[in-house]
């Protein structure tokens, strides 16, 4: 079932090969290329792993992979926003639309929920941070708090 979902998403992408959230481990490498990022390191954790990248624009990005190698969350921090189109992949359109449709403008940290995805933005000038999580794809026994 999961394979079918991933295949569907991959099919919906076509070209260019935007990647990441909800995608396989290969998308991490594509992200590296697209963001001209340097891979910093890979960390093995209980029930998941983390790939750390540093984009050429100066943002530190962390991609969270389940044991099957699917990206279930991304987190970042830096002086500017990361390439969200790259990081959110097929979910970017829904995120952008939700941002535009916010009725009550909260001048402060933002939480956007679109379907299965939660995006949270915070911080201030020079020190922005954020994360995007696919809630149903969190591995069992892994807390959202590890995504930071």
């Amino acid at each position: 079932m999961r394979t079918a979902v991933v295949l569907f998403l991959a099919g919906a992408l076509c070209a260019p090969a935007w990647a990441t959230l909800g995608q396989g481990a290969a998308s991490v490498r594509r992200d590296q290329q697209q963001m001209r990022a340097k891979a910093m390191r890979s960390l093995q954790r209980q029930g998941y792993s983390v790939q750390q990248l540093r984009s050429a624009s100066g943002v530190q990005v962390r991609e969270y992979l389940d044991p099957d190698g699917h990206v279930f969350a991304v987190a970042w921090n830096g002086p500017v926003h990361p390439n969200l189109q790259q990081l959110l992949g097929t979910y970017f359109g829904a995120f952008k639309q939700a941002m535009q449709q916010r009725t009550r403008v909260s001048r402060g940290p933002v939480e956007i929920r679109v379907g299965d995805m939660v995006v949270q933005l915070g911080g201030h000038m020079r020190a922005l941070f954020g994360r995007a999580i696919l809630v149903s794809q969190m591995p069992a026994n892994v807390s959202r708090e590890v995504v930071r």
Partner: protein
Amino acid sequence: MRFSIRQQLALAVLFLAASMLLTACGGGGSSSPTPTPGGGTTGNNVESVTVAPGPANNVNTLLANVTVCQSGTSNCQTINDVLVDTGSVGLRLFSDQVNLSLPGESVSGAPLAECSAFLDSVTWGPVVTADVQLAGEKASNVPIQLIGGSNYQTPPSSCSNGLTNANSVSTLGANGILGVGLWRHDCGAACTPELAQVTNSYYTCPSSGCSSTFVELQNQVQNPVWLFPQDNNGVLISLGGVTSGGQDTDGGNMIFGISTENNNQLGSAQVFPVDGNGNFITNFNGQGYSNSYLDTGSNGLYFLDSSTTGMPTCSDNSGFYCPASPTQFTATVQGASPSTTVSGPINFTIGNADSLCNTCAALPELGGPSPGSFDWGLPFFFGRNVFVAINGTSTPAGNGPFWAF
């Protein structure tokens, strides 16, 4: 318990009368040179500020009037209701509201523009220079940003990332932003050609199109306060207290300089140094959160998440908390490592955002989530004197950057 508008007004009048009585009885005497929060003080370095709905009819919006002039001339214009923001650096005004002809900065003969990243939006437009006057203080030749304008309708996609293009009064929430935060420059060394660490912030815009560039410090958008001839080491935000149910408005002052005049003495304020990102530590329920900051530009107290605070977010907007009844919390703050000075307890209350007074512009109990972080927004400043010391400047309590309150 909730107050009706009439009761709130009565309370406010009572409070005002009481504070006037205090002043009349010598409350403004010399024993305590730092003013009562929001209290009466005057001088060249005192800029009046208000919490009012403003042009975008918003809540918890700290506003001031800003005068800009063509450099070296008396050709000036005052822009009302500009957001006072300790979370950013630099003055940003709307291109279509500024009637002056302000000279643009250029890089290699092409106009210099900036795409400034705020947490949920960007401001896009050229960098120009102007004299900036606040109260009786004047900074000369300050690089500021003009937002929008004919050639700057749409920010580069390398910067916008699907975030809001804050190019209107309604999307920005005010007639501009006056960033009086911890830094002299808005980006700093990371955006200079020497370090070249941050791209997609400054852009050079020849007729062929804009591309990311690096900029020397003196050409970056800057905190006008550090360019004042005096009272230039920081600001004191001094706002009156707000009753728990909210008020129509709140008043106070932005006082320039730290311990440079009788009216801006640090006194007994505690100093909290920040890390390289401008953050300090908040201790809450036995945990330390290093991603903590003070920000008049945030309109609520944004902290942690539902599972940590026990408060649900609102069903119509998950960006705010909606507890069943007002919920009290206590935290302490301390400076970034290796500082160990810990504040006394900071008590705060979060109300249900859906049932807060909907005619009030000042709401002390508005809050929302910010996972792993404490964003002490404008409600923190109600009834306090809060000092912002600018990096690379000196005060009797040491060099900036730091917060003190």
